[in-house]
């Protein structure tokens, strides 16, 4: 009987090569994720300029404001950034500081949009509801469900605006809103529909009925037939 040789050098080489491949994978993954965050940051900067432009429009245009103001493209961009941030949170995790700061800034942009839309609604007598949605992505099953329902309702009735705020974010404007509407963690999800506050999960049927969405949709279709063709 002879003892067989062990190819130790081969196993060490394989082990180190595996480590190197893992490291390269990590570095590339981190680099690309970082690039994506930079991209979101850039988008937020662009949005800031557009938002400022809209604000100035309110100051400059005294006549026919309701005909001149257009929040549609601004809304699309806000929504696109929101989707991207949710995606990045999925990659980096809920507590990741990189995503957190972008989310904070994003919430400010949302509040600014809400202020503009509220003013436009008031001045131009727009009937479409403005919905603020307070949630957290940390241990809140109802929030997950509410997000799903809101996304679906908005898909069917795209003419009204929804503003989603992660309650754990910390900035002066959001803190003010949280205090104003008595938003607390155990009351999540919370919806504020045109200043009326609803605590806890709200079903699709309730939302459609409360906001009278079918009637508003019919009217919107009459006003803007090209949007629905």
């Amino acid at each position: 009987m002879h003892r067989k040789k062990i190819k130790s050098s081969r196993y060490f080489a394989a082990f180190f090569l595996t480590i190197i491949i893992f490291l390269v994978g990590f570095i590339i993954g981190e680099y690309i994720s970082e690039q994506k965050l930079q991209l979101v940051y850039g988008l937020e900067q662009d949005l800031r300029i557009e938002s400022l432009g809209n604000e100035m429009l309110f100051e400059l245009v005294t006549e026919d404001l309701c005909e001149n103001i257009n929040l549609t493209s601004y809304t699309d961009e806000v929504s696109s950034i929101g989707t991207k941030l949710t995606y990045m949170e999925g990659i980096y995790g809920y507590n990741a500081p990189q995503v957190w700061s972008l989310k904070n800034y994003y919430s400010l942009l949302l509040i600014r949009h809400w202020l503009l839309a509220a003013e436009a609604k008031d001045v131009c007598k727009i009937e479409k509801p403005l919905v603020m949605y307070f949630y957290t992505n940390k241990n809140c099953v109802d929030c997950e469900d509410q997000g799903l329902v809101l996304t679906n309702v908005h898909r069917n009735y795209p003419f009204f605006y929804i503003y989603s705020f992660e309650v754990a974010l910390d900035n002066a404007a959001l803190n003010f809103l949280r205090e104003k509407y008595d938003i607390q963690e155990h009351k999540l999800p919370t919806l504020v529909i045109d200043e009326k506050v609803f605590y806890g999960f709200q079903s699709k049927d309730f939302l459609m009925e409360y906001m009278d969405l079918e009637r508003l949709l019919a009217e919107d279709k009459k006003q803007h037939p090209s949007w629905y063709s």
Partner: protein
Amino acid sequence: MYITFHAIVIYILSFFGLFTSIVYFLTIKSPDKKEYVLDDKFRPKVSIIIPIWNEGSAQGGRLKKTVDSLLNCDYPKNKLEIIIVNDGSTDDSLKLAKEYELFGVKILSNKVSQGKTIAINEGLKHATGELVAGLDADSFIEADVLNKLVPCFKDPQVMGAIPSIKIWKPKTFLQKVQFHEFLSAVFIRHLQSELGAIPLAPGAFTLVRRKFVEEHGLLNARTMVEDLELSLRIQSHNYLIENVIDANVYTSGVVGLKAFVNQRLRWFYGFLIQIKRYKHLFSKDYGNLGVFILPTAVTFVFLTIALFFYAIIMLVYNATHWIRGLYLIGFQLPNFQYSFDLFFISVSNTTIIPVILVIVALVFVYYIKRISGEKQNILVPFITFTFTYWLLGSFCWVLALYYYIRKKKVKWGPNYFSS
């Protein structure tokens, strides 16, 4: 860094997969591989044993194809002994077999069937060849197989030599799955042989030195995987088993799903039992077999079982989640409108490493094709069948582990073919 349980699962599987793949990559083209050249002066006598059970005319001449392939092989006729052992067949098998007596084939017959292993052992007792092999009645050999296998025995340390066992003209889906399963096994055995550490020499036409079975015992009839047991026994005496990749033996593969599952259940359950029995082989005293091949085989089994359960849990969780979501939105079908955005192409740590692993697997497929001499395109079917095999194979592993833990008896019926 943000690490989820899902990421940990992916990292563990990827690390294991990459490490073993790289070891095998470094093994391909090993400079240590011995070359065995055909030598006219080295022609030891070879005995081939064909156990048969109900291989009569109803089987459509399978036995004829098997015996003819042996009679027509290139090995000198005076150095070839063919023994057919009729294991209590209840049809006209014996009559068919006896027709070959004219060609010098020896016929042995048991009145009552005692199982394939005992039938082969019966043949071994009567064999006079220096080298012996078993051949199932659903298999046949290419003419040059013996000329390619026999030279390995010039090295006195070599106790066994394995040909490449392939599925002959697969027709059904399940046979195609087996075709790729066998092809992968051919490739893996080729790599294991480069490491001098083959843990399993399949029963189909593995040539063994008769001296070994005489000194260390015949096939173990109490185990359901007598070929694995014999291989581990050879390894536990630190002898060598060689693999000759271009020596082709063909078999037909099982037909029904039940037979397919049963066969694997028998193999896998038998593997668990024999690994426990031969646990002393997990040692550096047994070279690469002890430090790499057996530990990775066991790790592979447990990762396969864990992955199977994880995949099922994830499937149930996601399906429940999806149905709940549908319920909340009044079962409105999802919107399939999709706008392409490069941003959402997932390039993160948990995707890059598995992608590298897939690339490694594709390179392996290329090698399998190259070294096994397969002419047909195997890439696309390989992916399809590997996936099917993963599902069925994992299920069989789970079942085998269940039987093993519960110490249940596996009923596998007459294990006559492709074992």
